[in-house]
């Protein structure tokens, strides 16, 4: 059969020594491996150049920079895998703590229902994005660019672009659980990553998400409700954005309209997803990779600070990292497809 002869041909091709070949196979098959190696190499490099890099306090800094980006990136991965993107998720992150603030301080709603309200609002925003993309057939890049500005406008208008205080009722234990305790946001982040790694690789939802992004017509023909999958992923991405925003607000103990109100959080998260090995074409992606991508970005920014490089060249590194990982991704997936490894 053709499959067998293809395998035989591959076997007969001249190959690198076994150890190298096995290493290459691991790199190509387990796509997170290459990102993990970069993350470790970077830690080794910065540890060598700055003693403070691996101290307890600095690791906490890195963890706190990684967590919100990784949480948002998980949602972005789900969307990218299903063939869509969401540019508005960062502003949802900025909006969510304001919604809690408005609900508690202006309407006297208790804290936990206010939290639920914030998540529900995020879900509704995601739902609207999803409906506009799937039913009204507006490409997600444009649709969510629109909702980005719309939400940003609502946020800046209602907050008068001023930061707000964390509601008194939400201080204390609630604040500690939701981001203020040293490792709280990292624990949330690892929980989210673990859950969605399982969702993407071990559940029907994940399988259908891959199917929708990999072959939309085929998935439809197989009876998968493709719109439901896409809309669901928009809702999840939006709610993860809200979670990241709440954690950040409680951590810095202030509700800042500029946190995701700029494009920073969204773009960092997309970068993390892409560096982690998620293709924009849909059909493939990794949640753990996105976490590692976010870690690499946090390490870079933190390490540059420590060794005294100005923040300006950081963008050069970031840009190069995105381009390189996309090129590597293309090359690796072609290799994987051709059955070479």
């Amino acid at each position, binding site marked *: 059969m053709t499959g067998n002869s*293809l395998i035989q041909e591959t076997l007969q091709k001249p190959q690198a020594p076994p150890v190298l070949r096995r290493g290459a196979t691991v790199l190509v098959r387990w796509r997170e491996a290459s990102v993990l190696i970069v993350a470790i190499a970077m830690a080794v490099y910065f540890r060598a150049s700055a003693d403070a890099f691996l101290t307890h306090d600095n690791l906490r800094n890195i963890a706190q920079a990684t967590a919100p980006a990784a949480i948002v990136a998980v949602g972005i991965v789900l969307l990218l895998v299903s063939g869509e993107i969401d540019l508005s998720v960062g502003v949802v992150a900025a909006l969510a703590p304001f919604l809690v603030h408005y609900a508690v301080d202006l309407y006297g709603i208790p804290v936990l229902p206010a939290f639920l309200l914030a998540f529900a609002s995020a879900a509704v925003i995601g739902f609207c994005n999803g409906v506009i993309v799937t039913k009204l057939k507006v490409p997600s890049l444009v649709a969510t660019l629109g909702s980005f500005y719309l939400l940003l406008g609502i946020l800046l208008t209602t907050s008068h672009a001023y930061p707000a205080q964390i509601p008194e009722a939400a201080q204390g234990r609630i604040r500690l659980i939701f981001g203020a305790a040293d490792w709280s946001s990292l624990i949330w982040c690892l929980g989210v990553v673990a859950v969605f790694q399982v969702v993407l690789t071990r559940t029907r939802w994940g*399988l259908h998400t891959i199917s929708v992004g990999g072959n939309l017509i*085929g998935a439809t*023909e197989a009876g998968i409700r493709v719109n439901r999958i896409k809309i669901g992923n928009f809702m999840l991405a939006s709610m993860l954005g809200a979670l990241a925003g709440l954690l950040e607000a409680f951590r810095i103990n202030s509700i800042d309209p500029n946190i995701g109100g700029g494009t920073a959080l969204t773009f960092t998260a997309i970068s993390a997803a892409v560096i982690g090995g998620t293709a924009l074409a849909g*059909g493939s992606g990794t949640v753990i990779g996105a976490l590692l991508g976010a870690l690499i970005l946090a390490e870079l920014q933190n390490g540059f600070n420590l060794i005294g490089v100005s923040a300006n060249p950081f963008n050069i590194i970031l840009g190069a990292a995105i381009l390189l990982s996309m090129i590597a991704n293309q090359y690796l997936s072609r290799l994987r497809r051709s059955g070479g490894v």
Partner: protein
Amino acid sequence: MSTVLQVEHVAKRFGALTALRDVNLRLEKGEVLGLIGDNGAGKSTLIKTLCGFHRPDEGRLLVNGDEVVLHSVDHARSLGIDTVYQGLALINELSVYHNMFLNRELRIGPLLNNRAMRRLAREHLSSIGVNIPDVTAEVAKLSGGQRQAVAVARAVFSDAKILLLDEPLAAMGAKEGTLILDLIRDLKDRGDVSVIIIAHNYAQVLDVCDRVNLLQHGAITFDRPTAETSLEELTELVVAEYRDRHRSR
């Protein structure tokens, strides 16, 4: 014999384009019906109407004598109608066994039961003589014939009672084509599965089908048991259509 599927005066239009004008068709239990016709005659549209993908603009469908309005592919499946599309509806990024179980996944609680799916996919493929070296391989790595075999095996595996095959032999080498034809013969022997098969190779149609229907300009214009027709007659019918078309120009 009982009629499992009946199509009465079905029409389907896409804007100004009339794909199906007035289709009348019946499928008996255990029968293999060959559907032939020129490109653009509406064969694929008809299949997609029968499997719940398109909703007909006019006419009605009867499944086992009961009139049904198919809301979705899922709905058609729940009535025992399954399809192998020309595009195969395989997901390149997924493994063979995940494709075999696509949208019918086995689960333990919320999690996929991959082990059971792998085992069943392996067993099923080998029981029908399809040789896929590794069911965990991505479908993208398979040859055209292997992909087709996986798609047909999936539909057979789903326990469908009415199987719609849209050009299952198109991408096949001679050996793999024989495999699919054998598969269809096995189904016929089982007696409880009825098949509609679109094909361009009339010799294969005569070989495997009980009856043949010709679709022309969105309507069935010829309906005869394969025993009462011949390769010459079928070829002549289609050639005549060409001739008429050229004359009318």
